[in-house]
């Protein structure tokens, strides 16, 4: 029979595709850096929320999954506000926050029937940073920060803030409104008297603190603020500015000053877990793991560990929850 050479055997095409699919599907699990003993624990945990707490959560999730290879933890950084929204919608079991939960968010959870427990797992010093070449400022007061960041602020140059500073344009960076860091800074510094504190918005805002670091590092005469850990990670490229709240003089953020509360912009870091979720073994173990090692993870990432009292409170809450 004459066979048209132009015709293709469908089988010849499908076979390699099928083979490839088979290979990928049956490809074994990748080796982890330390061979986990396969604890048998399995399940999924969805974590989201503060980008400040994200590095801690990521570190905890990483190590937890190495020890329990069958567990899947996904960690997002939608911001404290965004995290609570997902938490209230039931999309996540654990919500990270760089501020305490707000009344509206608590209401939402109440309406949704989601009981929750708060754990404080670190302390952050909110760092005010600038480009290393910005030599004229070593210390900045609350008033000056407010002048720069208040909503509707018209400050454009460093000179506008303080006449002794040069007439250089201010390049301003800060987190966006989904961020707990934003909330805290607005309430403490930029807009303390308002009912709904806010900061100015004609600046570069990003929920991704890495973008802020890149921005401050990359622009002369820049100013920005974010969690202390992000400063610690990028010490060479940033200059930290001491803060004066008008009472205790200029204080530089460090582990000691934050822990002892002498640094005026210290704030607690939390995660919230849904009480129902704790019934799942995987979530209970994860929470246990985090709380038990909270000091290690907080400091490893660049933050400060919680006080003894807070640790005791955590233990109590944990026993109440799981006991």
């Amino acid at each position, binding site marked *: 029979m004459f066979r048209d050479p132009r015709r293709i055997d469908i089988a010849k095409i499908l076979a390699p595709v099928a083979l490839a699919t088979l290979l990928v599907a049956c490809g074994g699990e990748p080796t982890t850096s330390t061979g986990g003993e396969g604890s048998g624990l399995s399940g999924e945990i969805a974590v989201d929320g503060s980008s400040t707490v994200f590095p801690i959560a990521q570190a905890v999730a990483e190590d937890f999954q190495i020890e329990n290879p069958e567990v899947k933890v996904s960690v997002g950084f939608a911001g404290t506000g965004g995290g609570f929204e997902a938490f209230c919608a039931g999309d996540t079991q654990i919500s990270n926050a760089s501020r305490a939960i707000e009344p509206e968010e608590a209401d939402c959870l109440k309406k949704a029937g989601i009981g929750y427990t708060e754990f404080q797992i670190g302390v952050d010093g909110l760092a005010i940073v600038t480009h290393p070449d910005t030599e004229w400022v070593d210390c900045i007061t609350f008033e000056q920060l407010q002048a720069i960041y208040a909503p509707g602020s018209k400050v454009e140059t460093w000179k506008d803030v303080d006449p002794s500073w040069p007439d250089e344009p201010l390049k301003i960076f800060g987190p966006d409104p989904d961020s707990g860091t934003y909330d805290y800074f607005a309430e403490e510094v930029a807009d303390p008297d308002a009912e709904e504190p806010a900061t100015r918005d*004609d600046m570069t805002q990003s929920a991704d603190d890495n973008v802020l670091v890149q921005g401050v590092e990359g622009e002369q005469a820049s100013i920005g603020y974010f969690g202390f850990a992000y400063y610690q990670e990028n010490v060479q490229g940033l200059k930290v500015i001491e803060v004066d709240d008008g009472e205790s003089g200029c204080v530089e953020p460090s582990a000691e000053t934050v822990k002892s509360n002498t640094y005026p912009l210290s704030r607690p870091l939390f995660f919230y877990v849904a009480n129902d979720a704790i019934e799942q073994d995987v979530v209970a173990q994860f929470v246990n793991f985090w709380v038990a090692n909270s000091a290690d993870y907080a400091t490893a990432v660049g933050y400060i560990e919680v006080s003894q009292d807070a640790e005791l409170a955590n233990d109590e809450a944990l026993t109440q929850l799981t006991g």
Partner: protein
Amino acid sequence: MATETFTLTSHRKRPVERAIKIALFGCAAFSVLITVGIIYTLLVDTITFFGNVSIVDFLTKANWSPQSGSFGVLELVWGTMIITVGAMLVAGPLGVATAVYLSEYAPARVRRVVKPILEILAGVPTVVFGYFALNFITPELMRAIYSDCGIFNWGSAALVLGLFILPTVASLSEDAMRAVPSSLRQAGYGLGSSKLRVSMRVVLPAALSGVVAALILGISRAVGETMAVTIAAGATPQIAFSPCASVQTMTAYIVQVAGGEASTGSVEYGSIFALGSTLFAITLLLNSLSIRFVKRFREVY
């Protein structure tokens, strides 16, 4: 071709044949469903959004600050526009020049090498162009010219975007030029014109519709592009003229909000759909225009 009908069909095959035809029609109809889906999705959330925000304010104000409830889109439009203009300043002249060279001057073996390379350039994902902007264009190029350029600036975004759409403009223009019949060229040469004159005064005007179509398509792609501009230009919605300044495009804003997972129904969530509708309208307009020019070109030849 589909209109010929033949009566030599075997009757027993009919039911299966009809079923297959219906299934295939379903596939084709599905594509219509996608368009319907896009329009419906965009419209619904956009309308909800404009229930909360005045559409006049949206279109005319230049103050984009969602947290204080201000949704004047002009700042984001500026970001998109200035980067698109910058990109076309790069891709337009270079693309058309490349097309002229490839179609009129280049020997066959040069074409064989250059065309695939241009195709590769077109196939590089735009994330990579963003990386390129951040790691090479800004530090090496922009900072060489303006030493205190910010790390996020629209100049590098425009440059990199121009590189991205260059192959599109070049290859479409080249197709248009190659389609010009040789007889026209021969006529020009026969009258004693130089190659340059023939290319510029004969071929290019003849291929004009096609070239214009290519340019319009380039603009459309630049407007809709997301990743390169998000990485390179930063996130500052402002009307700034200096290429060293950071701006935010409509697409970059959508990524910022959607990545932050604003809740359904919130005004911010609605704003990304309003912007999406704006983008869709703009690119639809540009694409239709481009197709019209292509049709006009094809009619002539």
